[in-house]
């Protein structure tokens, strides 16, 4: 095999999905070597067709499936979906193609989030795109966008917060007690406390340090969380705000923040000043960032502006207090921390309300989908994926892929992890869904009998190249490529009278890091000649609708 070429491709006008010269290479860390996972594959699908991709592990069939989804983007080559080139799209535009192009994975249990209910899992795609349509990106999308930053900050913050909050509280209590004790000792009523009182002075320091640390953490939390949660929620609760209003609000918020920092910068002295300043800078940075964001993306300016203003006003109140004479510094610290916490709680609650609303709206559609894939919605909706068997979980994956009414679904070994009897159920279900929704499928599997059953066209892959493309009935009756023949001979027959005659070949695939020259199959091919090492075969038609990349095909004029 191992051929390049596009003889098997059809008229671009007719095809729904078309991948040309797809190359995927994975660099091996530091060595400069590359894994040549997919090397110049071209495939196409007309609407309503199922293309079976078949080959051994490591032949690049799953990588091809993922490259079509651009996870990750192919190293080179072109993918056209409905005449739109996917490889040149930016991340956001690519994300917008996802409702049309869905995927079903091999292991149904790990493809479904074990901590969410079936209701949430199936509804999620719907909810995300409803929010999109209304110009309110769903929180999950924001998390995807800012997720890494959030994770890093949350990781740094949550642990110390958990330890420090009780510590701060305990220290505060000790401090009050020690104050009282000290006073009494001063009066001489309890002489024995004089010595401990010296030691008890320590909790005062501890209290201040702990509270200072909590505030420091809060400042960081603003930096991390501030980008995501308030923005997501404000945009959800308020919906579309006109960009002009948003810009005005953001400008006001920025002015407020700058004023706030300037006004309170010198209100404190000593180490508490630095903690407070850091906290201030955290909040101001969020506000300014939103202002900048709304300038850069006027379409989103409304929501960001309002969110910025909200934060600025709340923060301003706290810090205005700081400027007043007679308000103890500790009080300001505590108050600002409490305001932050309340705000976070509020934001989370609103997010929950909104999510509940969307879930209710999605329920009828979710129920319909579950029924379509043969799962009883009344019992399934509130259960979690691990409560289902493998076959049922695969049905859930199919429901999730179908809920957005996609055109193309890439099925990556959807039945390989299932029992034979369940496998038959899932295969029948896929066929039924295909007929019902007019789907176009890319079906990846290593089991030839399965591929034959579902496909309209089969592409046999080997080590990152295509060997043969043909209609399944022809391919199985008269394989033209020696590799196709090898695969066919390996199928176990459920009939003891048929002796298994596997063509004996070298056991393992050659390394994709350094693939063989010429035809990549030559090292295992029983028919290999010198020409196979020097010259890479091109894909050509050897029989009607049967295309093969081999110098010595088993079918056609050249066959002996």
């Amino acid at each position: 095999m191992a051929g390049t070429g596009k003889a098997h491709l059809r008229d671009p006008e007719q095809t729904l999905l078309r991948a040309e010269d797809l190359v995927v290479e994975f660099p091996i860390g530091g060595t400069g070597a590359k894994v040549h996972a997919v090397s110049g594959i071209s495939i196409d699908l007309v609407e309503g067709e199922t293309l079976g991709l078949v080959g051994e592990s490591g032949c690049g069939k799953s990588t091809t499936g993922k490259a079509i989804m651009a996870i990750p983007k192919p190293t080179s080559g072109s993918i056209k979906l409905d005449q739109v080139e996917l490889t040149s799209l930016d991340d956001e535009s690519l994300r917008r193609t996802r409702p049309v192009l869905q995927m079903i994975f091999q292991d149904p249990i790990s493809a479904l989030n074990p901590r969410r209910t079936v209701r949430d899992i199936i509804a999620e795609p719907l909810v995300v795109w409803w929010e999109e349509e209304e110009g309110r990106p769903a929180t999950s999308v924001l998390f995807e966008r800012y997720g890494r930053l959030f994770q890093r900050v949350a990781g740094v913050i949550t642990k110390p917060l958990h330890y420090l909050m009780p510590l701060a509280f305990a220290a505060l209590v000790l401090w009050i007690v020690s104050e009282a004790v000290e006073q009494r000792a001063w009066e001489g009523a309890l002489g024995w406390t004089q010595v401990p009182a010296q030691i008890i002075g320590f909790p005062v320091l501890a209290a201040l340090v702990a509270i200072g640390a909590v505030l420091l953490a809060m400042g960081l939390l603003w930096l991390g969380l501030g980008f995501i949660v308030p923005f997501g929620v404000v945009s959800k609760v308020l919906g579309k705000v006109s960009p002009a209003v948003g810009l005005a609000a953001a400008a006001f918020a920025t002015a407020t923040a700058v004023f706030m920092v300037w006004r309170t910068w010198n209100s404190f002295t000593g180490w508490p000043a630095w903690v407070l300043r850091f906290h201030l800078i955290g909040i101001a940075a969020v506000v300014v960032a939103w202002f900048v964001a709304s300038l850069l993306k006027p379409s989103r300016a409304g929501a960001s502006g309002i969110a910025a203003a909200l934060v600025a006003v709340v923060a301003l109140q706290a810090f205005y207090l700081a400027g007043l004479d007679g308000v103890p510094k500790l009080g300001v610290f505590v108050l600002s921390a409490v305001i932050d916490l309340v705000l976070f709680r509020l934001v989370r609650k609103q997010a929950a309300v909104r999510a509940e609303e969307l879930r209710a709206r999605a329920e009828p559609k979710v129920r319909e989908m579950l029924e379509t894939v043969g799962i009883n919605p009344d019992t399934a909706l509130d259960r979690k994926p691990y409560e289902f068997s493998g076959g049922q979980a695969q049905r859930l994956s199919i429901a999730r892929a179908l809920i957005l009414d996609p055109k193309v679904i890439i099925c990556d070994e959807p039945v390989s992890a299932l029992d034979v009897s369940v496998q038959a159920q899932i295969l029948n279900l896929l066929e039924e869904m295909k007929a019902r929704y007019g789907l176009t499928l890319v079906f990846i599997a290593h089991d030839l009998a399965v591929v034959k059953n579902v496909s309209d066209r089969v592409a046999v892959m080997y080590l990152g190249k295509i060997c043969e493309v043909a209609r399944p009935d022809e391919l199985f009756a008269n394989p033209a490529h020696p590799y196709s023949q090898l695969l066919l001979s390996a199928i176990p027959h459920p009939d003891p009278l048929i002796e298994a005659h596997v063509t004996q070949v070298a056991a393992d695939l050659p390394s994709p890091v350094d693939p063989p020259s010429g035809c990549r199959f030559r090292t295992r091919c029983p028919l290999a000649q010198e020409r196979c090492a020097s010259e890479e075969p091109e894909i050509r038609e050897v029989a009607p609708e049967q295309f093969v990349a081999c110098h010595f095909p088993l079918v056609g004029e050249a066959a002996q």
Partner: protein
Amino acid sequence: MSYTNGSDPIGGVSDTVDDHAPVLVVKNLTTTFATPRGPLTAVDDVSFTLRRGTALGIVGESGSGKSVTARSIMRLLPKSNVTTTGEVSINGIDMMALSAKELRAMWGPEVAMVFQDPLGSLNPVMRIGDQVAEGLRIHHKVSRKEARATALQLLRSVGIPSPQTRLDEYPHQLSGGMRQRVVIAIALSCGPKLLIADEPTTALDVTVQAQILDLLSDQQSERHMPLVLITHDLGVVAGRTQEVIVMYAGRIMERARTPVLFRDMKMPYTEALFRSIPKVEYPSHTKLAIIPGRPPTMVGAVRGCRFAPRCRYAQSRCVEEEPELTPAVDRDHVYRCFYPVGTPEGEQALEINRSNGRLTPEGELVGVS
């Protein structure tokens, strides 16, 4: 008990032993798990014997109790929440009566097992040579050098290319098929008198699957060693076993010599399993016959035939009482059904179900997509 220290791990045991003496005898084996919902009977009254040199296939869906049967025979199940009753004897040694120490002496020289996931059964931080040699060092008390030489021979005999370099490599450096070969080499290292392979090829590609199955059958016939091959795929047992047991919900549903089973299956469950396999001979887009629903959970008492709710042949009698294992025409062929496939009773049952609307005119269960 005497352990054959002298037996050659490569050539297997000598051929002078009586061929007709059963190597493995399982009688009324019942394994029950204590679960929060009550006792779960995973293996229910299973009996069979296995003679030297024969390969036995155990087939069934997930949850049919085939793996638990194997683990009960090996005594590999945890003690805390499992009760196993019945008799298991391997070469006349009563497995149920052995202490933990005596069991350790059994595993390896007497009985060995190959598991489904080769990566999970190899130690990731131990060199392959050492893992293969470990059993030899412990059971045959051979020197390090000798064990290494034998390990090399074993790797060669299971078809691993350049075994010399492989000896010093780690499992992650091998492909899935090569790893499974190493696992088989380990299982064979002490020259076991019985080999149990639990889904040895389920995690592997078709081409590799064929190679591993060939390897197992070659080793089995070469060593004249009985083999228990557990799988959910009827295609796997067809060419490589002499006898097949079909299990469902902890019970033996049908047992026959392999050619007989495929030619003349009597049990509707066997037929249903067979029909659900996509076959290469079918034209593409053939609608597959499926077994609707799932196997029952085996908690509490079960009335009637366990397969009845999913069976095309089931009548009211099947729900009421459970059929016994009935002998068929062929010697060694038994099945558990009142309305066997391919008999007048069976045809009649199908006809009745068709007329009372339980089956579609094509003979499929109603309400199944």
